């Protein structure tokens, strides 16, 4: 369905895939976008909804005007026949006007189906009968025929209910009898105004598709009490001959050879794809409708469904998700037994986060024959809804149920992905390694294995794995892009840049190469070129949210913060269902120092994406930074309650417990052994901070030094720089402390740099740091910087606390802001 219209509601609803808009007849230029879940409510009262296979605005509005005129003409007639003297003259006037729009038959069909409850006030209407002749003719007819209307109505009501298949059939037959004018014909015949045979014939013809219709019409005729002049046999003969005529016409279609038909469909598909490539979506849609109608006319619903599914894949490649959904859903309607069409619809809905609907389509795909894809689909739905244990069980079940299926690797890949989501990279690596041996021809498994090695911080191994994948699958973009990404992570930015150039050259129709290259340029501080590449990516791949967020981040790094915020806001408006864009925007607001607004942004993200642990963690981290430790602790507990193995929240909670002096509880949350993943390096850093706060300097320094030397992840490396500076300050080794933080950014590094420089007598540098911190929105940072200023004579007043107090507060802030 492309459009739903209702004259009663005076409204048209346009449904194009995932996009729903409506327009009211009163304001035909205002298209209002609504949520797809509201479709049922938008026309809730309307009993005259008509479905139209067209999105042509003018055509739909024209049909809407027609339906509105019919409905309002009937309502004007009701008012004209009512007893309100004040309203009757105007009702007659409007009725006359509306009857000029071909509504007379519709109005009379309905008006002659039910008798009036009272006597019409013809004395008021009669004076304007010449001026409003059409209205008068209609009103007079209804008034004159009241007796016959009542008689025919009673005759219908008296038909034995047992003659109908069920009560629904009675309602449906009555509806047809009213709207198609059968009541009206019998009424007119009863009043002697038309031929009785004609009324009976029309009834048999219009109601023939209903069970026992002939006996029902006979009973109605009998109750009315008029005699036909033709026998029932004559009707039946006439009936059949018309049907035969219809069959003859169908058979006149010229048969087309299979090869010729195939070539014609192929050419038509190429034409549609070409339109999609040029961005001419509405033309592509029209061509697709024509092609499908042609295939259906040839009696080939399965082929038509396949055509739509294939075109839907082309729409997907170009980011037309809504069109993709429209086409696959259309395929399920024209070929209700085509399991593949249902599976494809499930896929699209899954990507749109409409999980319940996706699950339902996957279940139907399974019922209709594709049990494997249905099972995998269900597992994917569970994974996407963060029910990871259930997802794991579902993938394992699929693995067990379909060991020899040609696509059995999907279950293995699914298990690997769930383990990665669960922060269980060792198990993920194990399953990928086995799967690669069992299904060596599946690139997704090779790339999944390499990505897991990266998760584990084994960057050299990951690089080799990606390079191996390239040898086996030179046409797999993820292998090439994965290699480039590892070089970036290793800090080999020139090599990474050259690898991303390779990706762009090999896969020019994919956004990933452009975004990767731009990201490396950003890392190099070449913001201008990075923005140019992102702009090109947005131009080429406007449907992909990645270049939008990359552009915003580049503007942020360049210090053009207002523009960055504007860029994020545009991206959020364009992709309202992407939680990471919303979190990026909230992070930027935090970075800009408006912590209240940032908290509001995180809160809104938590409400809009309650399943997103990033949103919850963002809020909890901000509470921690604001020094609301108990509240932050509760927030982390909520996250851990949702997913116990979510390490980011678990370790951040350990940091808060450390600040609060609950060291043993904190230690229990931290892992033992050599860290590997990013989260484990954060935990390692916290462990070092526990030693530092306990005065165990040697152990703390061992951990921080080891971390600085071994960690491969840049952000985590920065944590060890500030931790080492804090440790050196506690040993009064100010020069070493300064060296650790002088090239670092952020308020923590600034504080430690201020302290070191001030202690070394570098007052100019210390003042510069102090000035930078004056606008910091965190109260604890401000209080500490003022105390350092007092302690080292940068401010006039005397210090309020001891030097030890400063060291303790520095350690607290390192934990609150860095961990």
């Amino acid at each position, binding site marked *: 369905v492309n459009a739903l219209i209702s004259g009663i509601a005076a409204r048209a609803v346009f449904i194009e895939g995932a996009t729903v808009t409506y327009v009211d007849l009163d304001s035909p230029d205002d298209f209002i976008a609504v949520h797809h879940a*509201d479709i049922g409510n938008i026309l809730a009262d309307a009993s005259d909804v008509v479905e139209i296979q067209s999105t042509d605005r003018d055509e739909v509005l024209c049909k809407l005007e027609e339906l509105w005129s019919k409905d309002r003409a009937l309502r004007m007639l009701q008012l004209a026949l009512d007893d309100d003297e004040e309203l009757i003259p105007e009702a007659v006037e409007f009725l006359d006007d509306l009857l000029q729009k071909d509504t007379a038959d519709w109005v009379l069909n309905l008006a002659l189906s039910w008798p009036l409850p009272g006597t019409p006030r013809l004395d008021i209407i009669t004076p304007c009968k010449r001026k409003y002749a059409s209205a008068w003719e209609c009103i007079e007819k209804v008034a004159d025929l009241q007796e016959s209307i009542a008689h025919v109505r009673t005759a219908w009501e008296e038909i034995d209910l047992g003659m109908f298949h069920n009560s629904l059939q009675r309602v449906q037959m009555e509806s047809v009898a009213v709207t198609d004018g059968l009541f009206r014909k019998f009424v007119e015949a009863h009043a002697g105004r038309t031929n009785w045979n004609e009324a009976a014939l029309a009834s048999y013809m219009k109601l023939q598709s209903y069970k026992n219709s002939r006996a029902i019409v006979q009973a109605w005729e009998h109750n009315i009490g008029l005699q036909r002049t033709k026998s029932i046999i004559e009707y039946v003969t006439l009936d059949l001959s018309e049907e035969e005529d219809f069959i003859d016409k169908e058979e006149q279609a010229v048969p087309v050879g299979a090869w010729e038909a195939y070539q014609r469909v192929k050419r038509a598909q190429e034409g549609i794809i070409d339109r999609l490539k040029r961005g001419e979506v509405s033309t592509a849609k029209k061509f697709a409708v024509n092609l499908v109608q042609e295939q259906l006319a040839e009696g080939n619903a399965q082929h038509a469904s396949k055509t739509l599914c294939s075109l839907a894949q082309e729409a997907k490649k170009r980011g037309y998700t809504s069109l993709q959904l429209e086409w696959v859903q259309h395929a399920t309607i024209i070929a209700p037994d085509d399991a593949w069409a249902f599976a494809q619809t499930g896929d699209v809905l899954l990507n749109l986060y409409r*999980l319940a609907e996706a699950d339902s389509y996957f279940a139907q795909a399974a019922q209709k024959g594709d049990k494997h894809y249905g099972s995998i689909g269900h597992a994917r739905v569970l994974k996407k809804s963060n029910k990871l244990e259930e997802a794991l069980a579902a993938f394992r079940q699929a693995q067990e149920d379909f060991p020899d299926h040609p696509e059995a690797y999907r279950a293995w890949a699914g298990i690997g992905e769930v383990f990665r989501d669960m922060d269980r990279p060792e198990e993920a690596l194990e399953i990928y390694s086995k799967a690669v041996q069992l299904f060596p021809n599946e690139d997704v498994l090779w790339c999944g294995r390499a990505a897991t090695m990266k998760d584990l911080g084994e960057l050299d191994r990951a690089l080799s794995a990606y390079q191996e994948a390239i040898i086996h699958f030179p046409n797999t973009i993820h292998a090439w892009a994965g290699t480039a990404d590892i070089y970036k992570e290793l800090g080999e930015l020139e090599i990474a840049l050259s690898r991303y150039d390779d990706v762009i050259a090999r896969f020019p129709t994919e956004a990933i190469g452009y975004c990767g290259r731009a990201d490396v340029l950003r890392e190099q501080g070449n913001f201008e070129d990075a923005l140019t590449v992102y702009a090109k990516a947005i131009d080429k791949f406007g449907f992909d949210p990645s270049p939008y967020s990359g552009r915003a981040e580049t503007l942020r790094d360049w210090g053009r913060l207002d523009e960055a915020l504007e860029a994020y806001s545009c991206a959020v408006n364009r992709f309202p269902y992407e939680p990471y864009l919303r979190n990026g925007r909230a992070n930027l607001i935090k970075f800009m120092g408006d912590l209240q607004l940032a908290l509001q942004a995180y809160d809104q993200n938590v409400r809009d994406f309650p399943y997103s642990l990033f949103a919850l963690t963002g809020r909890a981290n901000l509470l921690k930074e604001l020094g609301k430790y108990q509240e932050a602790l509760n927030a982390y507990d909520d996250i851990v309650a949702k997913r116990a193995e979510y390490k980011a929240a678990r370790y951040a909670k350990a940091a808060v417990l450390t600040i609060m002096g609950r060291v043993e509880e904190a230690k229990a949350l931290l892992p033992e052994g050599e860290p590997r993943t990013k989260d484990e390096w954060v935990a390692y850093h916290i462990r070092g901070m526990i030693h530092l706060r306990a005065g165990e300097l040697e152990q703390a320094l061992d951990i921080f030094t080891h971390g600085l030397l071994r960690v491969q992840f840049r952000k985590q490396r920065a944590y060890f720089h500030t931790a080492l500076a804090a440790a050196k300050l506690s040993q009064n080794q100010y020069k070493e402390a300064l060296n650790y933080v002088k090239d670092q950014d952020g308020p923590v590094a600034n504080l430690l740099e201020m302290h070191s420089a001030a202690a070394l007598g570098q007052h100019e540098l210390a003042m510069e740091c102090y000035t930078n911190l004056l606008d910091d929105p965190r109260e604890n940072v401000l209080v500490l910087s003022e105390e350092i200023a007092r302690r080292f004579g940068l401010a006039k007043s005397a210090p309020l606390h001891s030097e030890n107090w400063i060291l303790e507060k520095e350690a607290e802030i390192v934990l609150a802001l860095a961990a």
Partner: protein
Amino acid sequence: VRLAGSAEESEALTERLRNAEISATAAGYQDILIDFGNAVLASKAVIARTLAAIQDLLDDAKANYTTYHHQLQAQARVPNEGFDKVRTQIEAALHPNFHQEIRYAALTLGNKWLHSYGKFAMILRTEMIENRATLFEENPSIFATRHQILINQSLPVGYRSTWQDRNKLAQAKCYSKLSAKTERVEYPNILMQDSQVDFGEDYVEVHIYGAFNRHSIERVIGPEPKRGADKLLWRSLKKSCEAAGVSVESTK
């Protein structure tokens, strides 16, 4: 009402409210949050409908406001498999064994209603519904999508309340839209977002158990129609309202 007022629901809602208070305190707008809650205590239930549907209810003293499910039962409506299936399943999850008896409205402050559901609106008399109405976070279909709830799963607790606790639900839901700069005049738009202003409706849904008729309507509101026939219908409706003791208000 018993479900919404259960200890489990009530505790979960209190926990959500506590989170709202933490954010409000951290961001310095705790007074606004309290004031917003107080304002919501004066909110009403509103139902948006077509002119014809409201007229039918007002013209007939015996007519009851009908539900979607009763329309189906009476065969006055044919279900739309695509759009209505999920809706029915979620309603059944919300109101096990009695979802067919629920009438749906939205919580409003002032003269706001959801235009996509109908160009005209009926504000209900609080005293006629307060003992049989509960509140739910939002449109249940959107809630299910937002929370990624699958059909065979139960709904999370803490997202509904009794009529008397509607302020708490509104505070727990809307706190992220408040700030230290929020003024009272903004409250109606914070409580109910209409698609004519921003994409997608967002509102607190009112679930009313059992039938009601025109005597439960306090006020009818709507815009002065632009077309002649509709203007006459509006005049006719105003007369019906007058006869039934219901006030009428024209909006722009």
